[in-house]
């Protein structure tokens, strides 16, 4: 998957599972202020990402630091790269 495909997959999954407004899905969109998610949604976000990318997320600290949609994109891109290198 290219980075753009990853971003597209993330955005589509989040729009569907969290009923988000497609137009607001910009990298600098703040999850809490702009997209109106809250900290409790983070567990479901993790599950959505795990299902979409078929990997397990154990990086508790990094997940807790996520604030914007772009942070999610970067997290998944980084993780996908690591997995690709590892395998």
């Amino acid at each position, binding site marked *: 998957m290219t980075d753009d495909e990853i971003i597209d997959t993330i955005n589509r999954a989040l729009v569907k*599972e*969290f009923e988000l407004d497609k137009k607001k899905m910009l990298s600098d969109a703040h999850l809490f202020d702009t997209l109106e998610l809250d900290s409790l949604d983070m567990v479901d976000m993790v599950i*959505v990402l795990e299902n979409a990318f078929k990997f397990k*997320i154990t990086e508790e600290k990094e997940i807790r630091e996520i604030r914007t949609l772009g942070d999610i994109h970067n997290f998944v891109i980084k993780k996908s790269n690591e997995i690709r290198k590892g395998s």
Partner: protein
Amino acid sequence: MTYDCAVIGAGLSGLASAIILSKNGLKTALIEKSSRTAPLVRGFKREGHYFDTGFHHAGGINEGSTGRLMLDYLGISQHLNVVSSNSNYTDMVRFRDSSFEFRFPVGIKQLKDRLEQFFPGDINFINRYINEINRQCSLLPFLNLNADIKTMNILENVHGNSLADFLSHNTDNPYLQSVLTIHSLLNGVPPGEQGLNNYAYIVGPYYESVSYIEGGGSALVAAYEKAAKENGVDIFLNREAQKLIFSSSGELKGTGFKDGAEINAKNIISTIHPSQLMNIVPENLFRPSYNKRIKTLDETPSAFILYGTSEIDLKRLIGSNLYLVPADGNNFGDFSNPIENRPINIIISNADKKENIFQCIFIMICPASINEVEQWGNSIRGKRPQGYLEFKDNICRRMLDYFVSYYPELKGKIHAVDFSTPLTLKDYSGSPFGSMYGAKHRIEQYNPFPMTSIKGLYLAGQSIVAPGLLGTLISAFLACGNILGHDYLRGALKVWNQEE
């Protein structure tokens, strides 16, 4: 009627939650659909004997434990006689393929010593195992009042090692593996799905001390009810919450019943099965991802339960709590296995004298799936078809035979007085699936948290933290902590502890 808080469901979690809130000055309504509180743990009488159902004994409520501190704080212990383990009241594990048996001592240090004595080849691992159980328990807020509530590693735990993996990587001894996995029966999670952290929450307090309550589950509920009344909780029985009500601006307003009556409360703690909560909230209240997660939570097993009497003194023969381990070990996740290949828990309750004939009372619990009785699922209690009754008789007889195959001296001396199947549990337990302990606390599953994304709506109950008396107490303190403040509530417990 207007309250500060409403608690839905008056099981052990709901009763505890309502008492905490009321005690702290909040006007609280406790709402239960059954005609009595805590129907699951009340026990019943048959042929003149009292049988316990959903409460036999518990870990972590002995003198000095956090669980006891909670019961003290709630004003419950003063109405109870809690009898904590001594050498006569502990667990025993017995194996099919040899005369090998292992009796658990009282105390975790003593357990370590005994394990080392029985399994000298595994001393290093035993040490690691015990340390790991202690470490996990120290991380759980409310088991350890000083643990930091914000630093629980949720993701690591969900994707953690299973108990079975942890053991199989570290020891080849099948007896040791069985001894260290047998308490999986207590939270209904097979060892291959059991996370080490969740297992530790169950066995940590349990290894330390097991207590029973004089008068059993029925005395336990009576004490909870007394404390609820003393603290001013208003209990509404025969009241099924059918919907949550929201104001036009979207704020939680209360809960409503079939006849149109309502209870207004800005804070609601739901202790019903989380999947049932989803049926009483407006459809779009939660996001689709949360909806899906809660509705598809994997359930703990159901059970076949035999209520029996024995002409032989089982207390003397066995002790108080026996686990029969089949030849293949403790895996009870596969219900295509005949019952003879499933581990079984036998609880020996107090002896009775009836018409001057000695009778010892026991309860046998065999994990089962609701699918095993699915074909009779639509029949009505009291009017079930002949096929079902024959099936029941057959399993009942085989369970007695199972017991006898481990203790041949019991042949002809043990008798079934009553027998229940997963259909019975479905009728009597709070779980829509007839499961014993609600949603499974297993690896790779995210159970719901005590807080929800809806302001004022909180969750407590066995599906949230852990099943059992201690699990429901902790879940109640966590849910109420969201309303009263966690630091405040944990502080109140600590102060209570010092003053006592």
